[in-house]
């Protein structure tokens, strides 16, 4: 293996060593440090407490320093797990998640995780090893152009060419990942850069002339929005993940309550507003509640906050909120006008804009509008059929919701499990729902739960999974067991790739092409083989007792619920339909 650069002994931090105005000094003189050591010092300066990673040749210098650094390292079993765990950690805590992978295959294994974080605007900083600078571009062993590969799925990325640039780059990376519209940043570290030496100074500030996010909304526009709200008869707040990530939940609640404005959320925004609140409409869109979709269709003012008018939300875009003036608050100016027309654009941080709005609003009741909403709720109550050949999957989620009093951190996989969770778990506080919304990544929920649990050790963390998705990162059971991470996995086992099967049932004449999972393993036995606990639940009356027992377990647990095999997610807006044209489905 080519180590490149100067291979030296790791610098042992002697007692005389101290940091003086950001410069590491020994007896008054700046000290040269190895790149790998600089990296760790930078992570400490950023108050990083944990990194998720997987070693390999190109990151050996980094792992050598990690060996006795006081930063926790969690060894995942696949680099995709590291990226998702860093992502889950970030979503649960609001702090950036950090992951590390080696060059080539290690780096490419991060790709799905980075794309997932990018689509959902999650602050992740990823470090990848790279072959030595002298070997780049020669198809060297385990070389992959990871900065080229991840250009479209990171907020920014770096290939560090010299050890002396490292501290600045890391400072910039954390700054970029966590400010403005958050997102993943990747730093590619050639082996000679990790092994090389430079003076270490952690910069206090960044100098990025091309990067100046706008936080405060324009006062004139905010006033305009206040006037529009006062004038509106049937306003609706449509809130997305931006409200969660900016910590705007309290301000949102205040605005909604002062003016009696019903709140519909996106999948990403679900935990921003309590499901049980009288003004909550739940989720809107393809599998949203009937009442949220009708309210949006009838509203005369749509106030979008930190949401991006995704096609799963809007359905047929031409008929989305057809009677409404549209106000759009977003920190990313490019989101405003990207998909829909707008009347009142406000570029800014959701929390700051809402807080600036509050003093401009009077208190108001809207009995007529709320009465109309009540009729929508009567016409379209959430509801489901009893399980035909197994437990109703929605029932399992209702029980989890009740038992945890809506206070657990819930992650999901992708598919029916995700949509049922969105519909039936009653959320209470922000950052308690962690799901891959934009990319829809199967296999996300379990490693994300591991990351969330490490970030929130005192919370109960549950991954609500499908039998298909869980098998995409099932190897992380070893990670959970090795570190005693007590996540709970509730598999809604329907023996199908359920959501795809539902589309085949509805739109392809029940031709279940490649969606039957007849080769499923015995999940209890698998859990036990890894050293976790496993439970199988085959009848409705067993759901509650097993949940009680499983959630009380001190370690990781897999629960395998035999659910009704062909249960479907309803209501459903067929693709490219207006969102008020919902299919009610079986009850």
């Amino acid at each position: 293996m080519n180590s490149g650069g100067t291979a030296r002994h790791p610098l042992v931090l002697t007692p005389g060593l101290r940091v003086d105005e950001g410069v590491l000094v020994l007896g008054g003189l700046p000290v040269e440090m190895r790149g790998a050591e600089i990296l760790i010092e930078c992570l400490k300066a950023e108050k990083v407490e944990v990194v998720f990673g997987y070693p390999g040749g190109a990151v050996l210098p980094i792992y050598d320093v990690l060996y006795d650094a006081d930063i926790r390292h969690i060894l995942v079993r696949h680099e995709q797990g590291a990226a998702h765990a860093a992502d889950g950690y970030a979503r649960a805590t609001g702090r950036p998640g950090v992951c590390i992978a080696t060059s080539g295959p290690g780096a490419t294994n991060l790709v799905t995780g980075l794309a997932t974080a990018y689509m959902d605007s999650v602050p992740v900083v990823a470090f990848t090893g790279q072959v030595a600078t002298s070997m780049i571009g020669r198809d060297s062993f385990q070389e992959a152009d990871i900065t080229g590969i991840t250009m479209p799925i990171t907020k920014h990325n770096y290939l560090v060419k010299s050890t002396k640039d490292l501290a600045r780059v890391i400072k910039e990376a954390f700054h970029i990942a966590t400010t403005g519209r958050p997102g993943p940043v990747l730093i590619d570290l050639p082996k000679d850069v990790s092994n090389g030496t430079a003076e270490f100074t952690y910069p206090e500030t960044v100098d990025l002339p091309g990067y100046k996010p706008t936080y405060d909304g324009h006062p004139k526009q905010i006033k305009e929005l206040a006037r529009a709200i006062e004038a509106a008869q049937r306003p609706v707040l449509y809130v997305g993940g931006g409200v969660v990530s900016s910590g705007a939940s309290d301000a949102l609640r205040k605005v909604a309550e002062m003016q009696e404005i019903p709140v519909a959320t996106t999948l990403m925004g679900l935990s921003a507003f309590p499901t049980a609140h009288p003004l909550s409409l739940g989720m809107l869109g393809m599998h949203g509640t009937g009442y949220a979709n009708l309210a949006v269709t009838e509203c005369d003012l749509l106030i979008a906050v930190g949401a991006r008018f995704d096609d799963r939300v809007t359905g047929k875009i031409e008929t989305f909120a057809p009677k409404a003036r549209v106000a759009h608050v977003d920190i990313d100016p490019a989101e405003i006008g990207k998909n829909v027309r707008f009347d009142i654009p406000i570029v800014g941080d959701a929390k700051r804009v809402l807080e600036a709005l509050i003093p401009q609003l009077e208190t108001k009741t809207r009995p007529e509008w709320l009465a109309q909403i009540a009729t929508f709720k009567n016409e379209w109550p959430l509801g489901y059929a009893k399980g035909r050949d197994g437990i109703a999957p929605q029932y399992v989620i209702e029980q989890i919701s009740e038992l945890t009093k809506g206070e657990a951190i819930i992650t999901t996989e992708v598919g029916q499990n995700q949509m049922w969770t969105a519909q039936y778990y009653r959320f209470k506080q922000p950052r308690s729902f962690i799901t891959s919304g934009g990319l829809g990544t199967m296999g996300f929920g379990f490693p994300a739960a591991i990351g969330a649990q490490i970030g929130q050790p005192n919370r109960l963390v549950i991954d609500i999974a499908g039998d298909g998705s869980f098998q995409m990162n099932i190897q992380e059971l070893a990670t959970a067991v090795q570190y005693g991470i007590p996540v709970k996995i509730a598999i809604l086992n329907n023996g199908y790739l359920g959501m795809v099967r539902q589309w085949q049932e509805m739109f392809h004449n029940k031709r279940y092409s490649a969606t039957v999972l007849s080769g499923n393993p015995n999940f209890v036995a698998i859990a036990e083989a890894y050293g976790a606990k496993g439970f199988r639940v085959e009848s409705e009356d067993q759901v509650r007792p097993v949940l009680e027992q499983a959630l009380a377990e001190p370690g990781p647990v897999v629960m395998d619920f035999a659910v009704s095999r062909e249960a479907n997610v309803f209501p459903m807006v067929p693709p490219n339909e207006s969102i008020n044209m919902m299919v009610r489905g079986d009850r």
Partner: protein
Amino acid sequence: MMKHTLSVLVMNQPGVLARVAGLFSRRGFNIESLAVGVTDEPNISRMTIQVEADDATLEQITKQLHKLIDVIKISDITTDERVDRELALIKISGDAANRSEILQVADIFRAKIVDVAEKSIVIEVTGDEAKIDALVQLTRPYGIIELVRTGKISMVRGSK
């Protein structure tokens, strides 16, 4: 749809061209021409980008470009009073029989002859797009062997 000229200041970093070009292709925007070179500040480059886009698309292009960390400033100079220049090298098949005719055409366009060989002539011309298009048109009957254009660079007139 209208042609727009964007003058974009970027950090002179490796990969910045790939970031800009990648953004255009991934979001389905069309680049008509792109010229890039360093400014008087060595760490900053200027890209002159010509795009054909309606207003909404142009707005998206501008906003998406702004999101690139390495992009410092974008000016749409389409409607500004400005000087546009492009340079082209045209290699034409020509021999003793038609050489003087070709030279005459070149002369009308104030183009320079930069290479003469037994069976070919290379003409260098600068000007705006229309002028270069016209010269290309007129030389085509002689047989163009190779054509290289730089893409347009632009500068706003006056002290702005």
